[in-house]
């Protein structure tokens, strides 16, 4: 869609529709530190880093159609190289502090060129497996190379002031991270809109056709891989900058998994989808982890629900809804309301079940039962004490699930029926039973 194809008026309207929400969000992000305590500011720094990382990751998946299961390597390598540069600054090097993330980005870009050349020889599952293999090999080397990467104790450094900017307060770090995240996302946006971006999408759709148009797709995919690695490395660099330390644990699978989950939940098909996912899961992990030990299970459940019922992620749902509203077709509010209510009921039922089971299987629960003389001492969930074995509790949970099943009967699809998504409900398509 080259710009000259659009009439000036519609493009102006599109600009307003697109720019306005972005401007609002940006304003909120800039004004946020006035209202945030240190913990929340730190959480937002982590959100920015996760968002940039996921955006870099999604260049590969959303644009080029390649799913990497080992992107932690580039994220971590960027972090390592940034901390080394920080240490060099500490030691008197004149590298300007504000450009630190570029050091990480450049290092990961170079590494991505090499790794990407190998990985993009193949596609699909084989591509994924090569990324896993490379990650394992790099991890094995890095973990043993203590003099370079600092082992599991890691490397620590300290942020050095640059001119008037001290970089000592978390506030400085927040604005710094935010700025670089926006720069990174803008870079990816221009890449997507560039001629090269068009070719990359072409590769995702019909690679052979692109080859027969004279493009060296292997070289292009290597480049895309390297850019993706570079942006991820920049995100890693921001993490090193924030934490003032790195260690080899960054190279482990968890950081490959998180970015994948963020992208799936947010939606790979929409440009800013990964940002949505990264924001949601980072804040979820940051705050819910202190409320329940089963937060990973909830996260897994959310992931599964998204994969099965909203394959285009949360942002995909949003885009579908907006498209639907714009097209002027009526929204089935009744269906949508029932759907939302149904999911809410099922969610509450699931949380009750998990929390009760989790509490009851603890050894300390047994000890409490013995010392108090009550067979089933009450458990607090949702600020109410429940007796886990009482018919009231069990019946209540059963009722929640039953109610959910009734409400979702026609909208969610059952085992024997075809899948119908939340998007269908928004789009007003009735389920098979209606």
């Amino acid at each position, binding site marked *: 869609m080259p710009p000259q194809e659009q009439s000036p008026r519609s493009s102006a309207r599109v600009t307003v529709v697109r720019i306005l929400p972005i401007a609002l969000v940006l304003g909120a992000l800039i004004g946020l530190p006035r209202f945030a305590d240190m913990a929340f500011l730190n959480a937002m720094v982590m959100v920015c880093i996760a968002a940039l990382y996921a955006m870099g990751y999604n260049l590969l998946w959303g644009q080029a159609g390649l799913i990497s299961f080992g992107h932690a390597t580039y994220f971590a390598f960027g972090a390592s190289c940034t901390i080394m540069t920080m240490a060099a600054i500490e030691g008197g090097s004149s590298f300007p502090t504000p450009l630190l993330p570029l050091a990480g980005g450049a290092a990961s870009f170079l590494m991505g060129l090499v790794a990407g050349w190998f990985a993009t020889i193949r596609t699909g599952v084989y591509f*994924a*497996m090569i990324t896993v293999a490379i990650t*394992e090999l790099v991890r*094995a080397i890095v973990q043993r*190379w203590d003099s370079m990467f600092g082992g599991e104790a890691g490397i620590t450094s300290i942020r050095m002031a640059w001119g008037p900017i001290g970089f000592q307060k978390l506030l400085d770090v927040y604005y710094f991270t935010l700025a670089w995240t926006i720069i990174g996302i803008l870079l990816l946006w221009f890449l997507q809109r560039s001629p090269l971006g068009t070719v990359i999408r072409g590769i995702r759709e019909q690679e052979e056709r692109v080859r027969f148009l004279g493009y060296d797709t292997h070289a292009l995919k290597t480049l895309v891989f390297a850019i993706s690695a570079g942006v991820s490395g920049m995100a890693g660099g921001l993490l090193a900058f924030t934490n003032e330390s790195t260690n080899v644990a960054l190279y482990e699978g968890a950081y490959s998994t998180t970015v994948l989950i963020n992208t799936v939940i947010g939606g790979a098909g929409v440009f800013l989808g990964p940002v949505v996912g990264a924001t949601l899961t980072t804040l979820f992990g940051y705050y819910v982890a202190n409320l329940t030990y089963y937060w990973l299970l909830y996260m*897994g459940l959310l992931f599964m629900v998204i994969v*099965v019922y909203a394959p285009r992620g949360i942002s995909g749902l949003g885009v579908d809804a907006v498209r639907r509203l714009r097209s002027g077709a009526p929204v089935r509010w009744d269906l949508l309301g029932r759907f939302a209510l149904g999911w809410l009921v099922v969610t509450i039922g699931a949380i009750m079940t998990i929390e009760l089971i989790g509490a009851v299987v603890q050894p300390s629960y047994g000890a409490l039962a013995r010392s108090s003389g009550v067979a089933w001492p009450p458990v607090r969930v949702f600020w109410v004490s429940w007796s886990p074995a009482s018919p009231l509790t069990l019946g209540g949970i059963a009722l929640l699930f039953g109610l959910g099943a009734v409400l979702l009967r026609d909208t969610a699809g059952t085992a024997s029926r075809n899948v119908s998504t939340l998007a269908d409900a928004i789009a007003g398509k009735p389920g098979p039973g209606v």
Partner: protein
Amino acid sequence: MDAFLVALLNGLVYGLLVFMVSAGLTLVFGMMGVLNFAHASFYMLGAYAAFLSGRYVGFWGGLVVATLAVGLVGLFSERLLLRKVRSFGHTQELLLTYGLFFMIEEVVKLLFGPTPVAYRVPDELRFTAFTIGNSQFPFFRLLMGATALVMFFGTFAALRFTRIGLIVRAAVERPQMVSALGHNVPIVFSGLFAVGSALAGLAGAVAGMYYPTSPAMAHELGSIVFVVVVIGGLGSLNGALAASLLIGVMTSFAVGIESTFGDLFRALGLSGLALPGLEAVQFSSIAGVLPYALMLFVLLWRPAGFAGNRA
């Protein structure tokens, strides 16, 4: 010589264990094109199922119960979940199994806690099978190997000599053709998925008595079995067996090598190039990553794997 023989035997038994877990995965992968991330989770579930049921039905009964139970879990996973996302393509299927892998581990942690449970080799199986030199070879390791071999020949025969096997083999080769011939491919898929899961469950029940039965079990074997499937070649049972044995023997021998990276650099005449801090690292300490190096090599050199004929 004895040491060599023992290392070889150990490598083979470990390779056979890996094969047990990979067998179902490679069949499912070959036929459905889905690299089932949750396969190793089924292996873990097998160990837990055998642990739970073993108290009531004994060790051998536990093996049967675990196989059947995990087969059922596989069947339900396919019919209730995987089937729903099939229309969205392989990527979505891959993500779904990835989510399952994640979920199963968390559910097991919820129910059984994060630490290992007491599922272990029954005392009556703790005896020496034979002796090589000074080394005594325990019976249950032999049992693990034997189970794998029975599994291999059983599956092989089922694929080769039964009608269902014929359909499955055909479906692995040309999925669209088989449905065109009027076979109910979805049912074949479900069945194959259930059988693949059941094989993983049996493997878990057998291996879980030797390995710690803990929520980390799936993670520990998970990536190795992918490596085997990729190296062995799409859907090839023979390839998976060869790859498993190779990996088993290779790791077993690598452990005995005491040379370091520094030695390698010197041997190559690159001592000047030796990276500081890395030359003292022993090869034996990186035995665990050899399979990945092998996989990388195979993928680049012979992308379809040992026995694969389709890229």
